């Protein structure tokens, strides 16, 4: 289905909102879908704001060496007061300096890299594992399905954060260990969602019809099941980045995540928290950065859910 972005008028897309949750036997081409998503997204001020925040953070992370006013690890000779305390925001150091006299803005800009790398890598792994397990269990059934889903139930009974902290602390924490640990605790939710979704898709008329005309398992899986799972993967993939960003920040705040001197928004707060009564900006600015980025992904993920899943329309 090689359809361009304009091939499917938006109106036709909107009509599915008022009728039953229709799923076409063959999902529209990716470019057509993308066009619809972008146009509907533009109508939601909150989603536009979310996308803007994400783009700003991505730009900051990519262009960090160009836009950051100082090096994130340079201890400025005039970066501390005579008594040795951090400087408040000023024209020279826009967001002030930290306890070692480093420019906070530069550290935040480089910290965006950490958040995004962990967010994308960890969540990418979690979504891949979750989708693989969910589809396998949902589509093939049998003993493998039962085993996989019981294992998923088991993982649901773990206090996720406690498990992540234990693992991150007892392996020697680094950026990649943190990403792996987060992926290990975060795949469970998406596996369950994909499993349920696959099960219900497998019972739909168009799939049953395919079986009846003698289509093979592989064909049904790749041509009918997987394309229809894409919206779910996209929604939970986006929301999952928010969860991942928060988890990375929390682990780094506790000192078991990304290790200094590599700046991460969480470890910046950890390093400076002893100063928070006298220099609250050292907690407020990185805290605001974490909240804004997570908020961006949550808002965009939620908008995607409403756009891609007509049955949920108006419920939230």
């Amino acid at each position: 289905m090689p359809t361009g972005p304009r091939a499917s008028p938006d109106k036709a897309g909107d009509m599915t909102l008022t009728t039953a949750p229709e799923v076409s036997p063959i999902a529209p081409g990716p470019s057509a879908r993308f066009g619809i998503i972008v146009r509907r997204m533009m109508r939601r001020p909150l989603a536009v704001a979310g996308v803007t925040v994400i783009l700003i953070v991505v730009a900051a992370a990519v262009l960090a060496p160009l836009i950051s006013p100082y090096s994130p690890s340079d201890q400025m000779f005039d970066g501390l007061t005579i008594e040795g305390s951090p400087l408040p925001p000023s024209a020279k150091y826009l967001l002030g300096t930290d306890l070692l006299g480093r420019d906070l803005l530069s550290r935040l800009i480089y910290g965006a890299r950490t958040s995004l790398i962990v967010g994308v890598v960890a969540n990418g792994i979690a979504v891949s594992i979750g989708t693989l397990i969910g589809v396998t269990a949902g589509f093939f059934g049998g003993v493998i399905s039962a085993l996989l889903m019981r294992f998923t139930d088991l993982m649901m009974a773990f206090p996720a954060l406690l498990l992540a902290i234990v693992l991150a602390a007892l392996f020697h924490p680094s950026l990649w260990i943190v990403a792996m640990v987060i992926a290990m605790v975060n795949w469970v939710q998406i596996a369950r969602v994909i499993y349920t979704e696959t099960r219900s898709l497998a019972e739909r008329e168009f799939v049953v019809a395919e079986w009846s005309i003698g289509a093979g398992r592989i064909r049904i899986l790749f041509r009918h099941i997987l394309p229809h799972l894409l919206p779910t993967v996209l929604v939970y993939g986006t929301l999952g980045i928010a969860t991942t960003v928060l988890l990375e920040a929390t682990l780094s705040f506790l000192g078991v995540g990304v290790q200094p001197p590599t700046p991460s928004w969480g470890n910046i707060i950890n390093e400076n928290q002893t100063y928070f009564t006298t220099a609250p900006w050292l907690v407020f600015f990185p805290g605001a950065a974490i909240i804004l980025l997570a908020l961006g992904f949550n808002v965009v993920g939620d908008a995607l859910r409403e756009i891609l899943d007509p049955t949920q329309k108006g419920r939230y």
Partner: protein
Amino acid sequence: MATYLVRRLLQSILILIGVSLVTFFLLYIVPADPARQIAGRSATPEVVENVRKELGLDLPFYQRYLRYADHLVRGDLGRSYLQKSRVSELIASRLPATLLLMVGAIFCELTIGLTMGLLAAVWRGSRIDQALMVMSFIGVSAPQFVVGIILLYIFGVYLGWLPIGGYGHFANLILPSVTLGILGAGWYSRMMRSSMIDVLREDYVRTARAKGMAPATVIVRHALPNAILPIVAMIGIDIGYFMSGIVVVESVFGWPGIGQLAWQAIQRVDIPIIMGVTLVSALAIVLGNLLADLITPMIDPRIKLR
């Protein structure tokens, strides 16, 4: 009902056995060495080896697990490596503080979340609705340590209304409860809003309005009780989120609960305590989910247990 309960309880026991096995395995493969930690930094290799033998850390994995499981079925969680006291006693002494914190958090998330959701549903589509929903998004996007530190700064340091830490008075409970409850408040406000919107569309609400009942009375007497019920069942599921949150919240506020106990144990590689807290948390999560599943059909008789 009875067979359902028996089956669910058996499942829960299996899950707990699985959790103990997985946790034990994960703690077995981590590179941190508890024997070295106990013996101290300056200990000679012989001393470290002796400690390892003494604790049975030199045994193969399955022997160690069987030994642990053997104690576990008798309710014995072992002894702390460093404090030498029983893990079950340590947890029991910390549990009341954690339960108190959770009760406070449930109270906060319900009052904040349900009020926000109710107002948003009543003024659906208005500016108030939009503002409330943005707030609920912020609630689910704010990490608990940031919320905790900012609340501490505003109410503890800047305004000076509430104590910065400590335990034992009602005032000590407020900030940790709000911090732990804000995430749930964000979710509840969204659920309450959608639940309330559904209920406001029901025939009996229209009938009540048609009879000429005051709008506020319709909402409080007819809509509210029905909108709240499906949400009450979710409290059991919250326990899982709380069990994760307490580690952070208790360490920010210095709250003497099992979250802090776990955090201290993690830093000292005190494996029996880590095992114990994980198992107690998993037990709480499993029971919470079971509770949620049992409450749902009581609230809505259309739902049958299978």
